[in-house]
Structures are given as C-alpha cells and as structure tokens.
C-alpha cells in the first residue's frame, strides 16, 4: 500500500522555447547502430539540449538528496589514480575474474559481472580507452523506496549510488594496486559510458519495460556503478531470467506511471529493438517529483524474495509451451506431408496449375 497518491502530471515550470525532443536525441526510430548522445544528466561539460531543465532539477532537489551528491563527489576523487609500478601478471583471466568478483562482494557489492566495452556503450565523443567493465549492483532499501515519488525515495536512490560508488572506487584502487589501469564510475549522471547495456551483457539482469534493469535477486530495486579497466578478465554472459515474458503482458508500470511515459511495445532505438520510455513525458515528471521512481517501486519483480521463484516458474512455463508448440508443429508437419494438397476452387495456385 503506497503511503500517498502521486501528484498529477501538471507542471508549474516549462520551456519558453522547447528543446529538441529527447526521443530524437536518444535515437528513437533510428535503424542503424550508433553511439548515444547525452541529453539530460551530464557532468562532462557538453552543452546539452535539456540543460536548462537539468540545472533547474539540480537546484530544486532537497538538501537531503544534495548532501549525498556532495559526499559522492568527494569520494569519487579517487576514481582515478596512480598505478603500482610493478604490474601483476595475469595468466588465467577466469581465475582473475573470480578473484575480482570475490573482492567486489567483500567490499559490499551484491551483483557483480564483467562485460566488454563496445563502441555502442560509449557516449558520442567519450572514450576512456579501457575495454573491460566490471559492473556492480547494490539494492536500495525497499521501505524507503515505498515513498516514491517523494523526495525521501530520491534520497534513498542517492544514498545507494553513494554506497555503490564507494565499492567501485575501492575496487578500482585495488586493481591499480596490481599495476593495471582502472577507473571507477559511480556518478548517476551520464559520464563516458551507458551503464545499463554493459550491465545487461555482464549478466546482472535484463532490461525491463520501464527502461531500468531487472535482476532476479532485487528486481528493479538496485543501482549500478562500474569499474573500467584493462585487467584481463573472463567475460560473463547475458542472462535469461524471463523478464520479457512478464513485461510483454504486465502493465503495472505502464498503468502506474502518471505521465504515461512507458511504452507498451519494444521500440527501435539506434538499430536495436528494446523497451523504451518516452523521454519527453518522463523527464518533466521526474523533475517535478525530484526523481520519481514509481515504476521501480511498483515493478512486481521488486518484491523481496519474489524474483528467483518467478523467473524459474516462467522459464519452465516457456519451455513447456515451446515443447508443446514443437510437438504440434511436428504433428501438423506430419499431417501435411502425408495428406495430398487440397486446393480451394478459387485458389490462384489451382488456376496457375490448370493454365499450364
């Protein structure tokens, strides 16, 4: 039961001259693969199309949120640093990946995976030059998130970013102590990389209808950070936890989103069909509520302890359905090959065969 009803999607702020649509900037409808352009959150200095609203957002946030941003900024000063002069030799990338993941878990990460950084994972004009990403996830406090879209939930979001960034910073320091370059990314603002595609390929979960990640352990109720490095690490594989099976039929986030920003069907975005949230509808409400997060909170996967059972059951159902379809298909195929083809009187093929 939510403690209060969300405010309506009406706004006391606006643009005198509307910026370019965020959906166009994000590449909605584009058929070719390409890098993403930054549009709203950024700390890299580019003049963004939606900068005025981003600036406004950063100043109307309550102090309870801003103080986490400040502490996070301070701890991220160690995201880069000097390398140990003697580099540790890595003969077995699998063993090294196991060691690094164990270290990340000891430091406090709940989800860890390794992916290769590709062109499409980098924003236009950005390239840190490191080709391995260690993706980290940390759950948020579910009781606090139940207050979404109040600032109390936004404070919990920022507190979690702060906590997961701390893990990333410490992990990057540990890798640099081995003599390998490493850079921690724990700023929720877009910097060099797109965290979600990397985390999906690192096997942390799948992309949900609401545009956020879903993992079996925490549903949507977690936040991401990453460490980019050149340390040789064995790559993880994407997981199939049956998110699409649920999201295709579930309407919970679609119905509970006040500005109706969550699209029901997958969209073509920069050459890839995926779940997409209408930026131009989502962001004004996100700003009004200082971070919203309703879709994350109401997602059925976010219910603690529900994910593993739900995933296993859905995969079982899918396999049973596929087996039944295959068996139907086989029996239908058998029937077709045994029976002669009977054509209707008006069948054009019949006409064609007669005319020959």
């Amino acid at each position, binding site marked *: 039961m939510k403690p209060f009803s969300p405010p309506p999607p009406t706004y006391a702020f*606006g643009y005198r001259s509307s910026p370019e649509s965020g959906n166009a900037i994000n590449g909605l409808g584009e058929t070719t693969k390409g890098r993403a352009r930054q549009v709203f959150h950024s700390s890299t200095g580019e003049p963004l199309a939606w900068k005025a609203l981003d*600036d406004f957002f*950063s100043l*109307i946030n309550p102090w309870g949120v801003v103080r986490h941003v400040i502490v996070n*900024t301070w701890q991220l000063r160690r995201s880069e640093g000097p390398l140990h*002069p003697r580099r540790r030799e890595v003969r077995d990338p699998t063993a090294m990946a196991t060691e690094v993941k164990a270290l990340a878990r000891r430091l406090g990460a709940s989800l860890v995976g390794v992916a290769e950084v590709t062109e499409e994972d980098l924003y236009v004009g950005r390239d840190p030059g490191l080709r391995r990403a260690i993706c980290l996830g940390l759950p948020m406090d579910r009781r606090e998130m139940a207050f979404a879209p109040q600032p109390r939930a936004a404070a919990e979001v920022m507190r979690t970013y702060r906590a997961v960034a701390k893990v990333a910073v410490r992990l990057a320091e540990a890798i640099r102590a081995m003599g390998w370059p490493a850079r921690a990314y724990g700023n929720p603002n877009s910097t060099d990389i797109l965290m979600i595609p990397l985390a999906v390929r690192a096997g942390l979960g799948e992309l949900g209808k609401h545009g956020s990640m879903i993992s079996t352990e925490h549903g949507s109720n977690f936040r991401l950070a990453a460490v980019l490095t050149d340390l040789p690490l064995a790559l993880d594989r994407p997981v199939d936890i049956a998110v699409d099976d649920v999201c295709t039929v579930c309407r919970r986030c679609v119905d509970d989103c006040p500005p109706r920003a969550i699209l029901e069907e997958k969209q073509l975005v920069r050459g890839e069909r995926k779940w997409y949230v209408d930026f131009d509808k989502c962001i004004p409400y996100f700003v009004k509520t200082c971070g919203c997060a309703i879709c994350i909170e109401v997602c059925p996967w976010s219910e603690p302890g529900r994910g593993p059972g739900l995933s296993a059951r859905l995969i079982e159902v899918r396999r049973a359905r596929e087996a039944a379809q295959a068996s139907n298909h086989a029996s239908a195929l058998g029937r077709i090959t045994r029976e002669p083809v009977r054509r209707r009187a008006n069948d054009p093929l019949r006409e064609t065969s007669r005319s020959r």
Partner: protein
Amino acid sequence: MRTLHVVQARAGLRRDLALLWRIAGMVFQYVVPGGHLRREYRRKTARGEVYWVDAAGPTRHREEPLRPR
C-alpha cells in the same frame, strides 16, 4: 629524498584541496542562487504562474565546478 610515494601523496593533497574548493562552490551555488530560485519557483507556483527554466534559470550547473578544464 623525494620518493615516488611522496610525490604521489603531494599530488593527491593538491587534488583534494582543489576538489574541496570546488565543492564549496557547489554548496554556495545550491544555497545562494539555488535558494533564490526555489523561493521564486514556490512564489510563482502559488500564484499559478509558470516558471520558465530557460529564461530565469540558473546560469551554472550544480556540477559545473567538477567538469574537466
């Protein structure tokens, strides 16, 4: 003797002091121009007027001091 460790520690100290100074600027931005903006926004909301973010908005982003130079 200036060892690598000493050089790195001094570089780290300089980096930390510079960042502290920039964070102080960030807090100032939030408190002073930000406080003015929040009062103005509340006043306009109460009157039923629209606050134009691209006309009367802030001139510097919260994280402006942190951007690479």
